[in-house]
């Protein structure tokens, strides 16, 4: 048979592609429930980890229902709204939050007419934003867990920050990412990076100062004299560190401002 004829080539390519596509579709559909469960369990593990509970894949669901007492959604004015925080699509909300940030930046340079348009847009976006909050009760203490969503170098980064009852002191933090560089930006998922967040405060008086990631290797935060609000950044992972800092300061977490100020003691 002439394997170089046009007809053969076309047929060969078509059949190959159809077979491969069929097998791939089959694999994806069969494995999807397992993958979804992995993602769900991992989310629970991360939420629990931010309050210092180490859950394994097996007991995550049980520990989650035991410790997480409330699972709610608040809006940007700090009021509780309908729905469950766990079901919120963080990808979508993260995008809305970034749009809000972009408008806030534009507003700085806008003239009066533009400001009016931008402000309507801003109010509209803000009313759409759903902010999940988890309330955890552990050993007689209450912790408030805030999911995070931001941009790293290659893709999204996210995490959970839990605050103590004073709504100021960080009780724990975990971070994760989609595809940061292993060994560099991906280090945000390691405990050496997230552990120092514990005990830091996000307010200076009444002002939201957030957390700063300091460059300069080990003990950089100490050297910069910023022990209250500063942590060490990752050497070689500058853009990821900066993205994480922005996530807390201006991309996402600051949207919780009204809610936190309302409850702050």
């Amino acid at each position, binding site marked *: 048979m002439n*394997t170089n004829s046009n007809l053969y080539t076309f047929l*060969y390519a078509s059949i190959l*592609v159809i077979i491969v596509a069929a097998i*791939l579709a089959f*694999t994806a559909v069969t494995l999807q429930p397992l*993958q979804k469960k992995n993602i769900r369990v991992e989310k629970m593990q991360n939420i629990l980890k931010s309050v210092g509970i180490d859950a394994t894949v097996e007991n995550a669901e049980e520990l989650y229902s035991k410790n997480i007492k409330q699972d709610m959604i608040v809006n940007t004015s700090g009021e509780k709204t309908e729905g469950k925080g766990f079901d919120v699509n963080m990808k979508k909300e993260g995008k809305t939050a970034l749009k809000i940030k972009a408008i806030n930046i534009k507003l700085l340079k806008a003239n009066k007419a533009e400001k009016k348009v931008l402000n309507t847009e801003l109010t509209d976006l803000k009313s759409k934003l759903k902010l999940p909050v988890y309330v955890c009760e552990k050993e007689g203490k209450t912790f408030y867990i805030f999911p995070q969503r931001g941009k790293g170098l290659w893709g999204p980064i996210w995490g959970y920050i839990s605050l103590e009852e004073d709504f100021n002191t960080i009780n724990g933090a975990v971070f994760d990412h989609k595809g940061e560089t*292993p*060994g560099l930006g991906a280090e945000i998922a390691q405990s050496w990076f997230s552990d120092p967040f514990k005990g830091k405060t996000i307010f200076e008086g009444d002002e939201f100062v957030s957390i700063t990631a300091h460059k300069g*290797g080990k003990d950089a935060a100490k050297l910069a004299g910023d022990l209250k609000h500063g942590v060490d950044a990752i050497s070689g992972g500058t853009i990821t560190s900066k993205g994480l800092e922005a996530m807390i300061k201006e991309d996402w977490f600051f949207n919780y401002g009204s809610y936190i100020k309302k409850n702050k003691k």
Partner: protein
Amino acid sequence: MSKNSKLITGPINLNNPITVQVLGICSALAVTVKVEPAVVMSISVTFVLAFANVLISLMRNTIPSRIRIIVQLVIIAFLVIVVDQVLKAFAYDVSKQLSVFVGLIITNCILMGRLEAFALGNKPFDSFLDGIGNGAGYAIILIIVAVFREFFGSGSIWNFKIIPQSFYDAGFMDNGFVILPPMALIVVGIIIWIQRARTKELIEEN
């Protein structure tokens, strides 16, 4: 030495994909900051390479030569996606470790290089051995570079601290330069130098 064992041992030294064929350099620079991702990457590449070799070898007499590169690419992409999906379902932690690099196996030049140079003209079992051998040759270089970079760059190996805290207290600092990609290139260069100097077959005349 029998033909089959030559297929395995050849790529480890005399015909090493990285140091002699100079393929797969891109991933050698990217995943060698730490030992762990380097090892998982090596295993994944070996797996995909061996099976892509077998599949292409089985199909070798039917592939129209004008579209053979595309056919190879489809097979590689197919295997990589299957590996990625299976890892996500059954080994979620490993899949997260590797993140983007699983997808990047598709662009690893060793795969296309071996399919084109070997699998298209050899029997399935030989191709399988060739895939394992080249995967092993790739793995050895990756792990040597990763051990070097993790030790000097982070003071640890496989995430265990090797350099004691007292060294740091006395003023020792991890070398940040080692973490950056150019250092991997330099290390690979040094390995090539040592290998060429010690192996008679690789010394070029003139």
